């Protein structure tokens, strides 16, 4: 495994001196995010999200399976997020680094446990057939802050995806192909998005850290919020202790950012819808 080499000590000195003046190494403001770009693929539910130079590809697919015995009305949402060496040479296939486990856990909490997708709406025939959604994430490039990029890509893919229209007559289930009947979007309750802040000793927090900033910081805080001003997940794994005011300040910043991010997502979806033929005429 390629162990990541620490940057030379002059980088940390410069970074702290720059942050003390309120400047970041790529010219951003401390609470400014990098540019968000979405590239939609051919299939519905295939979208690549770019946050600056960090890129994550999300793909949603669906299949019909038998539900669990104790939950006959619920569908499944499986999230597969393994980071491979394509993202960076420090990752290896076979999930061992702490950052990988943290990202997977936070994505599970943000998307599954917050019930962003209505799993009961995935039910076709209670006790017999339900939809199983599989969300696969491919981490293409790690330039810092893979988690925020992954959560954006996931929610965008889920919003973009459409499942085949299913008709239930008695006990018979007819699955219509996309040519016969237009596919149906998923039932999404809300859009939880992750925001990661990096902290340095005695300095204000910065949003959306780059690779160098997250290597040299003394702690990170991830807040998952939705456009309805609700905190879905708050995760702080180690690092310098933070006071209540510091956390609430960051949450307040996050609320506005998430609203902007959801607006960017909706605009991108709108643009894609104009260019794509989904309805059957």
């Amino acid at each position, binding site marked *: 495994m390629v162990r990541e080499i620490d940057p030379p000590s*002059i980088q940390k000195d410069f970074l702290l001196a720059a942050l003390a003046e309120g400047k970041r190494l790529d010219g951003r403001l401390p609470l400014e995010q990098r540019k968000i770009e979405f590239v939609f693929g051919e299939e519905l539910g295939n979208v690549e999200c770019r946050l600056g130079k960090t890129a994550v590809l999300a793909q949603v697919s669906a299949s019909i399976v038998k539900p669990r015995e104790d939950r006959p009305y619920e569908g499944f949402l499986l999230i597969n997020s393994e980071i491979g060496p394509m993202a960076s040479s420090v990752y290896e296939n076979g999930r061992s680094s702490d950052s990988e486990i943290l990202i997977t856990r936070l994505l599970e909490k943000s998307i599954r446990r917050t019930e962003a997708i209505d799993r009961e709406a995935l039910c076709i025939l209670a006790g017999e057939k339900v939809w199983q959604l599989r969300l696969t994430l491919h981490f293409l490039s790690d330039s810092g802050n893979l988690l925020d990029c992954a959560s954006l890509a996931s929610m965008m893919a889920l919003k973009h995806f459409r499942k085949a229209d299913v008709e239930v007559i008695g006990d018979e289930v007819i699955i219509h192909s996309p040519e016969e009947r237009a596919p149906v979007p998923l039932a999404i309750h809300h859009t939880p998005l992750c925001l990661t802040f990096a902290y340095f000793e005695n300095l204000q927090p910065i949003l959306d850290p780059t690779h160098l900033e997250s290597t040299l910081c003394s702690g990170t805080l991830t807040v998952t919020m939705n456009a309805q001003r609700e905190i879905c997940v708050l995760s702080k794994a180690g690092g310098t202790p933070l006071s209540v005011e510091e956390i609430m300040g960051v949450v307040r910043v996050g609320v506005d950012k998430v609203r902007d991010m959801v607006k960017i997502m909706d605009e991108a979806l709108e643009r894609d819808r104009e260019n794509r033929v989904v309805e059957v005429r």
Partner: protein
Amino acid sequence: MASTLVLPGDSIPLPSSSKSVVLGPGLAASSSRIPAPSSDEVPSIISNKLGLLSSAKGKERSEQFWVEGKSKRYIPAQKDMVLGTVIARHAEGFRVDLGSSQMAQLDALAFEGATKRSKPNLKVGTLVYARVALANRDMEPEIECFDPNTGKAEGFGELKSGLVVSCSLQLCRHLLNPKFPLLPTLAATIPFEIAVGLNGRVWFKTETVSESIALKRVIEGIDSGDIKPEKGEVDSAVREYLA
């Protein structure tokens, strides 16, 4: 002269016009290839890298050939000037990271005026500017912090404060070329001190933080192709970044 794209393993035909041919990086004289048809006795030249075949006329009708490609991974070669980070120290010297596949060895005595009594005291995490003394693909590369011809430091050694930027190997070679317009254009607006490592790292030091950040963004912009290395574009980019 149109450049041809060569792939690793392509054999290059030699022009018969030049008296002598100098092979630069990316080319090797191969003798272990499948022998060419019997009449051909000239050893064939094989390219190692992907890129454009470039040539230049040298003195006395000699011609230099090399392959120019875009790459970020450094492969140590002798006499290269590199920027390395000290990652470990032991009794005899230091282990330095150059960004290549193997760590390099820096002997504690490979400094100007170093004796067994007065060895340099470099901490882990120090940035050093050094020269590759020995580079073999089967062994760990060795670097030294003095010029072997003069025995003096000549700018090699520890670099204090400043900022390090990663860039492609091609840009580093361009920056060392005195005819490349970037550094003189930048020097007109920002006073700076710079050290270019051929392993894809550039170190510079300016008086203020914003000047360093502006330099970093300009170098990264030129590397990615957003800014063209012409005086006008560079000047407007610097003004925008300093504001």
